[in-house]
């Protein structure tokens, strides 16, 4: 994609400003089941998103193959999209500005496939050995992803960010009588050499076994202590209320509540 060409052509076609967002993502994941490699997935994908402002109105398009030969059709489509927008709030792109880059303190060391397989096998075996009531390890999965994000726009913005993560997850089931409970755990793993596999298995197995033998409570109003993870989930369910878009549309209960006590 010749970005300078796209920006110049956009101006010729009556688009005031154009922004090109690119995301190059490389991913690898492996899963383990009953002592064997169950699945292996690898990918490399470059995605492109365009944001155009014409007459103060904004239009967006996401593409996976932004070929220069399709440029005119794509830009014409963006213009048509912008023309039907009725919003009175003028849209604008972001101009370059002094930016302080927050550098991630995580230094991921990429393990080899045999190292990952050995870890997943150990996690599966250790979970099954942790308690006789743990009857199945549904899956142990390893996932790693590297991303490069690039934003270029007609106001001169040209910025790039690289990121990476590696995670290990496991799901297990425990059975006692007719009662079956499941639980899972996900952990970021920077370096296998420092990863505490015993602690990972201990936490997952303890949480799982702790779910067995639960009794029903009568419905009613109780004082509740929320663990960090539980509160995070609850808060996530409410996060939509904070969405600028919902607030702007006046359909969030928090609209026009800035400065007021809400919780």
């Amino acid at each position: 994609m010749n970005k300078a060409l796209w920006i110049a052509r956009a101006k010729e076609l009556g688009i005031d400003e154009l922004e090109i967002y690119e995301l190059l993502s490389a991913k690898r994941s492996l899963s383990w089941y009953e002592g064997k490699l169950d699945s292996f997935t690898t990918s490399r994908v470059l995605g492109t998103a365009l944001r155009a402002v014409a007459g103060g109105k904004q239009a967006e398009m996401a593409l996976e193959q932004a070929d220069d030969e399709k440029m005119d059709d794509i830009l014409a489509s963006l213009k048509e999209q912008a023309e039907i927008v009725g919003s009175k709030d003028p849209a604008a792109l972001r101009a370059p500005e002094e930016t302080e880059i927050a550098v991630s303190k995580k230094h991921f060391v990429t393990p080899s496939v045999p190292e990952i397989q050995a870890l997943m096998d150990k996690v599966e075996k250790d979970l099954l050995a942790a308690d006789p009531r743990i009857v199945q390890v549904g899956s142990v999965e390893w996932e790693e992803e590297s991303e490069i994000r690039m934003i270029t726009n007609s106001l001169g913005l040209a910025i790039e960010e690289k990121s990476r993560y590696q995670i290990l997850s496991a799901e297990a089931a425990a059975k006692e009588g007719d009662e079956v409970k499941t639980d899972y755990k996900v952990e970021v793993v920077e370096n296998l050499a420092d990863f505490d596999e015993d602690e990972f298995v201990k936490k997952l197995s303890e949480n799982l076994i702790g779910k067995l033998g639960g009794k029903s409570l009568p419905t009613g109003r109780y004082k509740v202590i929320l663990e960090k993870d539980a509160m995070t989930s609850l808060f996530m369910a409410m996060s939509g209320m904070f969405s600028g878009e919902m607030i702007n549309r006046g359909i969030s209960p928090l609209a026009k509540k800035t400065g007021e006590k809400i919780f």
Partner: protein
Amino acid sequence: MLTQKKLEEYLSRCMDSACDFAEIYEEYEESETIETLDLSVEKAERQVVSGVGIRLYRELQSVYGYSNETDDEALLPLIDDLRSAIGAKEEGKEASSVTLQRVEYENRHPVKIDYRSVPLSEKAALIFRAEKSAKETDERIVKTTGRMLNVHQEVQVSTSEGRLIGDTRVRTRMFVEAYAREGEVFMSGGDRPGAGKGLEFYEEMQPEEIGKEAARQAIVMLQAKDCPSGKMPVVIDCAFGGVIFHEACGHALEATGVARNQSVFAGKMGMQIASPCVSAMDDGTIPNAWGCQNIDDEGNFRMPRLLIKDGILTSYMIDRLNGRRMGADVTGSGRRQSYKFEPTSRMSNTFICAGSDSFESLFEGIERGLYAKKMGGGSVNPMTGEFNFAVNEGYLIENGKISYPVKGAALIGNGRDILMNIDKVSDNLARGQGMCGSLSGSIPTDVGQPAIRVSSITVGGTANE
């Protein structure tokens, strides 16, 4: 799409490894979304998704890779990565070359008006008709939002068995939300119909009706009182009421969980898993239904499956890999959101079949219960069958009659128990549209049922406090 010659070359290269099966899935999907607020367009977005997913099997092991670059430079290294992961061909064994045979068939889901040929402004006008109708329903409707989604997807699947087959899937859906205010009470209602059709859908389903339905719900809920809690009989209405069956039972009938004994219904074939008045289907062949396809995402023809007959489990929904695990034939149930997902067994249009009871008879004999007219979101654990669902529009039933609307109701239970506790099934089967999320991503599915009566469900509510 790649040429047949190129596909044969790639598949032959895949088979030059320890794999015993290879598949290439190609996809090109265009979609657009128009969003409105109070009769003005807020957003118009377009998206193109295109790429290739390649899958190799070695017995029960699967390796999968995908890319949106579809030339040799990208795909040959991807195939070689996959070959390396699955292992080398046994020494002395010769690699077989793949010859493809294109499979032709009659399209069950033809489209009359291609949305791509219609200007955005005309599509926005359809949403405005719905919003206007909602606003005119009642002066307490203070705000409306609308959204239209249009999708055109082309897929092609080729396999080392020599099968080459394609499909074009088109769908449209309109979402309308109406917001009603009375004093300090602010309530919303919504309607979200869709179909595997082009814009002719809005000639059959008038936008005005969508707007009116959204407004009706919002107005009703203004009068709602807190819902009482406890175990009680519940009448769950037709159409989207089927979301409980979908989530709490349908997912547990997918081979993904069954093959690994991770489903409450694993090993129950031929056994009674539901009340004798319950039969249920998964049918991806219903012409132009929201969850329809000519072929699944593994290239197999869609077929209707009777999952439960008179309470007896008669079929699971089985994809290719889990079919291998179970030693069972595929049922044309392999689906995925896009080429970025490996397919697995998924539902299409899944519903409880019509029964013989009248809708009115469902309320007979109920001293105190809940009528769940519109279901909301929920969650379920397919391994245990435990679920909880919000009721978006509910009414208390008192002495066999619908009494007053209630808010804050939730249904809590276990799919296995619910199926056994259905004691009446009415004759008013209808389907509703939704997006189903699972291992292979988010896909369009119809849920459905006639109105049913469950003799006892735990209802969560705040009226007893």
